[in-house]
């Protein structure tokens, strides 16, 4: 286990380093430099000089990178260009709704995806099973901005079943809070759920068609035991492997969901940062999200090694 962890670190640490470089590059590739972008094309050299000094943009690029990364390691992401506040203070209030939407979205995708995927695998020879499989094919490719605007329009604006006008914090009323996040969570989960269904189904089908399941059937093992004990066990591995991918998908869709449902999350912050040309905040958010995805995949790998005896053996 320890050896596996160390081996993964050899891959994770260079990746993390490159992620910081990529996020930093966002500032470097701005046409005309950050000060120009900040001032919206004002050409007063004194103002530009002042801005450059204030944000340390007059120093060599590598020095800027080192001081930026030094700050990041101490939890200081610099000063937001748009608000003049520390970036941390801009981002922190956005975490609550994001963690909630992405977290619940992940739970819904995994639970629904595994249940429906198993169902589709067991019923693979029937019309229902084939229909579910075909529908999941559509589900992975349907654009979230389209289904979310359609659902928000139909269930929110036209029928008034669920609110679509923003996020209600839980301390303003639990029921109102749950209502405000229901549609965002269900919609953000559509592609990841469909993706999970497809993978669980194919892993289950492979297991159900395998010689050991055939042997178990011949020995008179009950269907329920075969499905849950033998086949599902083999379908869990792939699910854990792609949890980081699901997280990354969910965060990508968050940008859309935050905009459509007017949620105060990181997705909205990214769009705001772009509109207000707040590159310090933009860098920080991109970095945080990427690091979160890398950490998740490290954890997923460790969990997989812990629960799968074949992997444990392969490593040690």
């Amino acid at each position, binding site marked *: 286990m320890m050896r596996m962890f160390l081996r993964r670190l050899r891959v994770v640490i260079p990746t993390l380093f490159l992620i910081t470089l990529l996020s930093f590059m966002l500032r470097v590739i701005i046409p005309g430099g950050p000060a120009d972008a900040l001032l919206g094309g004002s050409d007063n050299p004194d103002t530009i000089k002042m801005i450059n000094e204030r944000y340390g943009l007059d120093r060599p690029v590598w020095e800027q990178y080192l001081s930026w990364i030094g700050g990041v390691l101490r939890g200081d992401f610099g000063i937001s260009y748009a608000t003049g506040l520390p970036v941390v203070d801009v981002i922190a209030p956005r975490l609550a709704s994001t963690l909630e939407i992405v977290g619940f979205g992940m739970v819904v995708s995994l639970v629904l995806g595994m249940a429906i995927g198993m169902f589709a695998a067991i019923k693979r020879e029937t019309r229902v099973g084939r229909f579910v499989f075909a529908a999941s094919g559509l589900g992975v490719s349907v654009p979230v901005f389209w289904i979310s605007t359609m659902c*928000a*329009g139909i269930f929110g604006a036209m029928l008034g079943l669920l609110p679509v006008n923003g996020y209600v914090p839980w301390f303003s009323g639990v029921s109102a809070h749950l209502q405000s996040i229901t549609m965002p969570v269900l919609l953000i989960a559509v592609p990841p759920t469909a993706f999970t269904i497809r993978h669980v189904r194919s892993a289950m089908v492979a297991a159900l068609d395998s010689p050991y399941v055939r042997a178990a059937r011949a020995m008179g093992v009950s269907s329920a035991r075969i499905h849950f004990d033998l086949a599902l066990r083999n379908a869990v591995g792939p699910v854990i492997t792609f949890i980081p991918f699901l997280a990354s998908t969910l965060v990508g869709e968050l940008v859309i969901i935050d905009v459509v449902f007017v949620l105060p999350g990181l997705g909205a912050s990214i769009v705001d940062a*772009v509109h207000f040309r707040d590159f310090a905040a933009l860098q920080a958010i991109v970095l945080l999200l990427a690091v979160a995805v890398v950490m998740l995949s490290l954890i997923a790998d460790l969990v997989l090694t812990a629960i799968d005896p074949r992997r444990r053996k392969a490593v040690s």
Partner: protein
Amino acid sequence: MTIAQQITTGRTAPVGKRTRSDRVLTPTVVFTLAVVALVIAVGLLAPLIAPFDPLTTNSGNTFASPSAEHWLGTDQAGRDVLSRLMYGATASFRGTAIAVAVFMVIGVPWGLAAGYLGGPFDEASMRLADAILSIPGLVLAVAITGVVGSGLNMSMVALGFIFSPSIAMLLRSNILPIRRADYLLVARSLGVSNLRAAFRHVLPNAFAPVLVQACSLASIAMIVQAALGFLGLGVNPPHPSWGGDLADAYLFFTEAPFATVVPGLVIVLAAFSISRIGDALRAWLHVG
């Protein structure tokens, strides 16, 4: 299906008939090819065949229902929805083509070099691929577009860059087994240069899965492009784009739900068709 497979799976293929999975030009594939051909044709011919100018507003005729004059009605500014969709096809097709060109131009040499050369370049460039892929695609696309400025061309170049590691990693993993192939050893011992061996012997044998992957990335590119348009970062308004028009129409959903439904359906149909062509290609090229 081989005899051994039939015995182990207990299923039999009809004798003397090609099985369903062997057929490439199924009705679905023909349909999807037709859809893609239609989108490209409409995109290229939009200025000739669009019934109205997509930018001409008419404040006296907003949210008109479909009629003989305006087949799909008009939008909030009284512009012809069908004409805007046709011009939107131009933007969508051009944007997807830019993204595909960029990720192939970056991804193929990258994957070829990483897989064939191996060593420190392989190691370093694959970490870079990990780093790029660990940033959620839409987040990176929005960030880069926000930095370099919105507009169709730049945003699709950014998207092509973001997708290039997928191509590079796939090509690299397909090249690894070829490096030990006998024919490569023979070619090298006959004095074929490294560069020639890479392009003549390695690349063609590892390329089929890349084509399949390119189709599915093209389909995602089309959707992401629409998503960027939806966020106001793609084609600059008031010029027509499927995503941007959908965002505009959504603001007036209760007045004219039809205007949100139609661009969305067009995006879904076009993107789905491209990905189905990828599936057909997979079957035709016998990619696993």
